[in-house]
């Protein structure tokens, strides 16, 4: 499966016009035939396509993702350096969005015609349709330019000593705006989804039974209904996790966040094939892992799936 991904990606990338020699020549503001040949020879681009493919696949099978043409560093090292910032950004945004979104949805579903419910509907509409870069810029205008309480770009101020408490706090400080921007799209989706799903569940028979038993409304909502209503949320969260790169690329670019998204985007523009291949390989693995985690999460919240195996 992963092998197919590698070969397919490699072929796709080879169809793109231009290579790293063109990029380096472009960045250099000029070139000569000799230097371009020199670059192509250095990175083995002068060899026939099938040999390049075979060499690459051979290396990957041995656990070597190659060396970045642009940074001249092992791709694995480059990617590992970028994984933590991206995961920090995306997981924080996703978790916040799921928690707050579900909470909003649940509250709204209890009184579907009250003000808060309409507020959630509007919020969902605006949040989901506003382009994330636009949201990001509005947040920058508010927090950075007007209130002047938030830093604008990067993961951390490079002059802060690493590993100290100040460093961690600075990272959190830098994290605030990117997370807020990124979670705005997810938040909208989850609150809407949770609201619809809750209303559906609240209308079902077992809820009526629960109420008939004389249980309080809060217990009914949070203990009985939520468990079932949250299943579609998990499904979507699992699916969306594989989309994280696309959303994160924009946010990472606006805030110069040193994550995988930026690296992927810039490597594509540069024609840094080993780096792109490495990232694709890595994200294919993430998708597989997250699918597994989603299945496990189903079992945890839904007793029916758990018992299905035992039956």
């Amino acid at each position: 499966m992963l092998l197919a991904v590698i070969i397919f990606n490699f072929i796709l990338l080879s169809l793109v016009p231009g290579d790293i020699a063109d990029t380096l020549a472009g960045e250099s503001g000029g070139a000569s035939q000799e230097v371009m040949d020199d670059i192509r020879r250095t990175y083995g681009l002068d060899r026939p396509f099938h040999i390049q493919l075979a060499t690459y696949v051979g290396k990957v099978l041995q656990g070597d993702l190659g060396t970045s043409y642009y940074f001249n560093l092992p791709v694995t090292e480059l990617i590992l350096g970028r994984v933590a910032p991206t995961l920090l950004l995306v997981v924080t945004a996703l978790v916040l969005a799921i928690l707050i979104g579900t909470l909003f949805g649940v509250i709204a579903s209890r009184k579907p015609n009250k003000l808060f419910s309409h507020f959630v509907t509007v919020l969902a509409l605006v949040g989901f349709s506003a382009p994330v870069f636009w949201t990001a810029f509005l947040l920058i205008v508010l927090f950075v330019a007007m209130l002047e309480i938030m830093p604008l770009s990067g993961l951390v101020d490079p002059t802060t000593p690493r590993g100290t408490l100040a460093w961690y706090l600075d990272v959190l400080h830098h994290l605030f705006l990117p997370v807020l921007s990124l979670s705005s799209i997810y938040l909208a989706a989850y609150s809407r989804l949770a609201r619809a799903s809750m209303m559906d569940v609240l209308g079902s028979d077992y809820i009526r039974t629960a109420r008939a038993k004389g249980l309080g409304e809060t217990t009914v909502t949070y203990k009985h209904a939520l468990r079932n209503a949250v299943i579609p949320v998990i499904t979507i969260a699992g699916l969306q996790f594989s989309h994280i790169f696309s959303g994160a690329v924009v946010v990472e670019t606006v805030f110069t966040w040193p994550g995988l998204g930026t690296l992927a985007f810039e490597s594509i523009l540069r024609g840094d094939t080993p780096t792109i291949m490495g990232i694709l390989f890595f994200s294919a693995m993430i998708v597989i892992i997250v699918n597994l985690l989603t299945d496990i999460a189903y079992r945890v919240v839904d007793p029916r799936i758990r018992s299905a195996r035992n039956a």
Partner: protein
Amino acid sequence: MKKLLATLTSAAVLATAAAVSAEEPKRGGTLTFSYGIIAGHFNPAIASGTPTGIPGTQLFAALLRFDDEWNPKPYLAESWEISDDGLTVTIKLRANARFHDGMPITSEDVKFSIETYQEHHPFKPMYAPVESIDTPDPLTAVFNLSNPHPAILLAFSSQLGVIIPKHVYGNTDNIRQHPQNSQNVVGSGPFKLKEFKPGEYIIMERNEDYFLEGKPYIDQIVYKKISETTSRVISLEKGDVDMTAFESNAPFLDRLKKNEHLTLTPDGYSAIGPLEWLAFNTKHEPFDDKRVRQAIAYAIDKEFILKVLYGGYAQRSLGPIHPGSVFAPKDVNPYTYDIEKAKELLDEAGYTPDADGIRIRTTLNYIPGGATWKRKTEFVKAQLKKVGIDVTIKASADFRAWIKTVSNHEFDMTMDSVFNWGDPVIGVHRTYQSTNIRPGVPWHNTQQFQNAAVDELMEKAGKELDRDKRAALYQEMQKIVVDEAPIAYLHTSPYHTVFNHDRVGNPPVDSIWGVSSPWDEVYIK
């Protein structure tokens, strides 16, 4: 009385200005610089380009440096001498200069560095005439040339001629992949590499053993990548960033200009000499006819482009050489906007309007990246419509796709940007030499322009050491080229260096190399 008062006031202003510039540089502080790109490495001997050059010239010292009037000044070289026949150049090195690892800089390192440039640097003509380098003693290097080479002193400066240690970079046959191009860099410049996070930032710290006593003044340079222009602008306004360079977006420049803490300057770009133009493929019909090319040059309202699209931040350029150069064109046809003249020329060339009023149907490519390029292309399309030329704009997916199209001559017209790189031998000849038509290589003679007289004039000027005689040759060459019009010359790139004048003293703008010159005079107020 009023006049006297005015004189007094201006005298007072002058006095304050003098007092400000005479301010004593202070030691210490961190300068935060930001740029849209961070290079993969900082070794200027194997790559040109500003992303490598700006940090590269802080880490590595060169033999010479240049002031803002194109005069060479000592740097690693204490003195230099060109023999009367122009065939030998003798360099005397400073005795006290050391690399960051403490090893002395010797003529062996000079020889090794220039040979590395000859073998691996993209600009071949820079050191092409250097046949051999002798090292009679550790502090003397003698360059033996095959012909007089007027560009050599400039080639010894900034990023075009840094000295790299042989004992570090000479231990491999694959210098392109040398790990110390980007980590543990060993140079002899005013700053040492402290930390490099690929794609994020570079931290450089003061070289305590720098060979120029008492310098540099600043403790540390934080060089941050901020690729989004808006974010860079806000960072400047907030004071998070002290200086940026190569800013070119007119609305943003307008905005920055209004800020009372910031100064904008177009100084420091005359060496790289950035020009923006419309190039023709002279082998494609109808651009094989000089009159069609001239007609297009007349049909474009250059003043409108300068005023409206570039907000007055760019400068008109009339020919192959940048207006900031001593060889800038003087008496060439300026192709003043003239629609009637353009129509006349097209009539003469036999391209008369058809039933729809169209004379020529053709295509136009442009460099991707930057909204201004696209707007300029669309403006030219509208302009050419007025003289009966129907243009289809061809957008490229990305930079590499555009380079492929243009370098393989698969275009009719293209919007292009080319740098002069200091001396015409390095950055100008390549665009016009008939011997430099090389498919697949970016920024060669992609127009496929061939003119024997121009070839000969460049050949002569490339070997002429006398600046005035050389200037005369380039004037003549440019007259012919502008008349032949393989390119419609439009304007310079609107590059500006922006710095916070409350914080930054002596910004690196008083050299033809601007931010690609050593920042050893810069201080934090």
